[in-house]
């Protein structure tokens, strides 16, 4: 069984890449991540001008993070050494860069290419700083930027997109038309993680980027849209902490995946866990390569008018084994589920509208949806 895959023509030993962020802020950090099993690393965003980082700049709980970190603290010159370290170590490095204009972006691209970067990721989509609002939401601007960079370098170019837009497909298309080799998504989502009601202050003093577990559904939706729009190598990002999350992205069409927050919360050991579980799953299912599952779920996505109305209702697949539970009864907004004193759960198929919620709330998979008899 083989986990290897391809990212814009670059052969990778597995689909797990460390995304741009504090865990790739230096050569030393990147090497640690590679040693933990990652197949490639994306540097923290590299700029011409260093932006000082405020304190505090991170807040988080329950697998969710908000950050107001403004990119790398190393100078462009310093990145020569940092990237060089990783290259010497034999790792694959994707340099994430951000600039204000197409020509500045091309200049940065040429520079990090000389430093040895294997590919570029255009980090135009941070919800704070100048990323998203300048380049990341306007297709003509994006087209111009990507085209300039593609013309300037010989290494593959990937564009990192944000879900904070209402024209994601058009942006992906603009990147493709301009000659990009890949797209990665998503970047963090503009957010305010919370407000301290005693001091009446937001946890962090400005809008930040939301990442981690809760953003995965948004990442999955964005990646599906991108994969349905362009024919490029797509790298899925957002809320990956377990092997099945990675598979979900791949089944929606991604070639590779990136992660950051889970490693911040739980350490680099997560990389090995995901890869081991992924191997186990593939073996148990008899798959030899990720190509056998890639895009399979994407093909099942329909438009509303393609969904056939079936007269389905909930039925009990087996007897309820949990005396103390009543999740299904509470959740059914149509009052169709009743749990008797004897612990027997029954569905009134005349009241049931086939909404499907009981199937997902039952921890014992007691329900199925079947054609009404």
């Amino acid at each position: 069984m083989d986990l290897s895959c391809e990212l814009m023509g670059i052969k990778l030993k597995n689909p797990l890449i460390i995304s741009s962020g504090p865990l790739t802020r230096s050569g030393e950090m990147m090497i640690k991540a590679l040693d933990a099993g990652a197949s490639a690393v994306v540097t923290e965003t590299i700029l011409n001008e260093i932006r000082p980082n405020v304190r505090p700049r991170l807040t988080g709980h329950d697998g969710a993070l908000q950050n107001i970190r403004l990119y790398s603290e190393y100078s462009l010159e310093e990145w020569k050494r940092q990237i060089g370290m990783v290259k010497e170590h034999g790792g694959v490095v994707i340099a994430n860069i951000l600039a204000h204009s197409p020509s500045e972006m091309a200049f940065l691209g040429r520079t990090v290419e000389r430093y040895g970067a294997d590919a570029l990721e255009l980090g135009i989509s941070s919800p704070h700083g100048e990323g998203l609002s300048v380049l990341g939401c306007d297709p003509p601007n994006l087209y111009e930027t990507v085209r300039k960079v593609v013309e300037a370098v010989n290494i593959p170019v990937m564009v990192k997109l944000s879900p904070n837009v209402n024209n994601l497909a058009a942006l992906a298309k603009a990147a493709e038309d301009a000659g990009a080799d890949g797209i990665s998504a998503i970047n963090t989502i503009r957010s305010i993680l919370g407000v301290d009601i005693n001091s009446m202050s937001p946890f962090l003093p400005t809008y930040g980027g939301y990442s981690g577990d809760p953003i995965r559904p948004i990442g999955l939706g964005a990646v599906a849209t991108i994969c349905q729009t362009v024919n490029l190598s797509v790298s899925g990002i957002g809320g990956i902490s377990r092997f099945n999350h990675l598979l979900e992205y791949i089944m929606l069409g991604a070639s590779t995946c990136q992660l950051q927050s889970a490693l911040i919360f739980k350490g680099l050991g997560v990389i090995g866990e995901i890869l081991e579980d992924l191997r186990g799953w593939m073996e148990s299912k008899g798959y030899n390569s990720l190509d056998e599952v890639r895009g399979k779920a994407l093909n099942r996505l329909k438009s509303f008018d393609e969904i056939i109305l079936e007269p389905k209702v909930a039925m009990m697949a087996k007897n309820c084994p949990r005396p103390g539970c009543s999740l299904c009864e509470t959740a059914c907004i149509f009052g169709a589920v009743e749990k008797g004193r004897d612990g027997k759960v029954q569905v009134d198929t005349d009241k049931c509208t086939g909404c499907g919620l009981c199937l997902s709330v039952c921890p014992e998979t007691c329900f199925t949806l079947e054609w009404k008899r």
Partner: protein
Amino acid sequence: MPNIREVARRAGVSVATVSRVLNHPERVSPKTKEHIDRIMKELDFSPNVFARSLNLKRSHTVGLVIPDIVNPQYMEIARGVEQVAHEKGYNLLLCNTEKSRSKEQDYIRMLIDKKIDGIILAFTLLQEEDFEEIRRKKIPLVLFGQNILNENINSVYSDFREGAYLAVSHLISLGFRRIAYIGGDGDHLENRDKTLGYTEALLSEGIAVSKELMVEGADDVDSGYLAALKLLKLSPLPDAVFAANDLMAMGAVDALKAEGLRIPHDISVIGYDNIRMASLLEPKLTTVSWPVYKMGLISARILIEEVESDEENPPAQNIYLRPRLKIRKSCGHETRVSEIFDQPT
């Protein structure tokens, strides 16, 4: 003297409900009837007074006049109108004009004779002068499809010029330049509007309008088939076809396939209407949808509201509903996501 509206307000129900208690008590729940009867007594309201203020000669029948009973689009209008009429306790008289102005005039006379409460005219061919009697008799009227007369008549309409413009612009954005047009029956204003949309979309992209690419059909499947055969004689062949309705588009697809062309590889096709069958065609037909069933519902609601209103000259309502591109396979677009969100990228 208290009036029916006061009764309704006191009872916390609509005027229509009070009137139903008076005219058709069997259609009202016993509890409601009892409640309203009590309020009428309290107010010393006598139905005779009500009879003078409101036309009791109501027939509880509304008429729907459509051009062609075979066209599934028109049956969708009827479905919407019927549903509301039934819910409000009205019968529906369906009249099929077969696209003839004189037949439409006959029907109007017949409906007036039958003391019809109100009339919905779908895609009417009538002229200003034909409305004389309807106006004199103050029969509530809703024009469906196209706001052809003036803002003083109720209308529920869509913009067929805009819909055609969307379809043809979509074809142009996909790179097509030789775009043929199978037009509908030119007697109908909505078909002339579609032709306008077609030419405007071409001109706005600097593409010349060529007469040889424009063929007139008769709104049905067969005429679409024949029109496509005619287009196939052209050299060079058109690279896309926009048909003014789905039935003609289906006929055209059939003819093109019969002549060995692959859709959309060799030629793209877009229709208009988004009838159910359009999504069953192979390849699935890209088309322009307009919410015809919903427009039927709204027409009936406006009509019956006016029938039941005791206002002397209620202001006309003009309600516009937007056409939308429904992207499927036959246009030859590249991105699956366009089909899901109906957004060209």
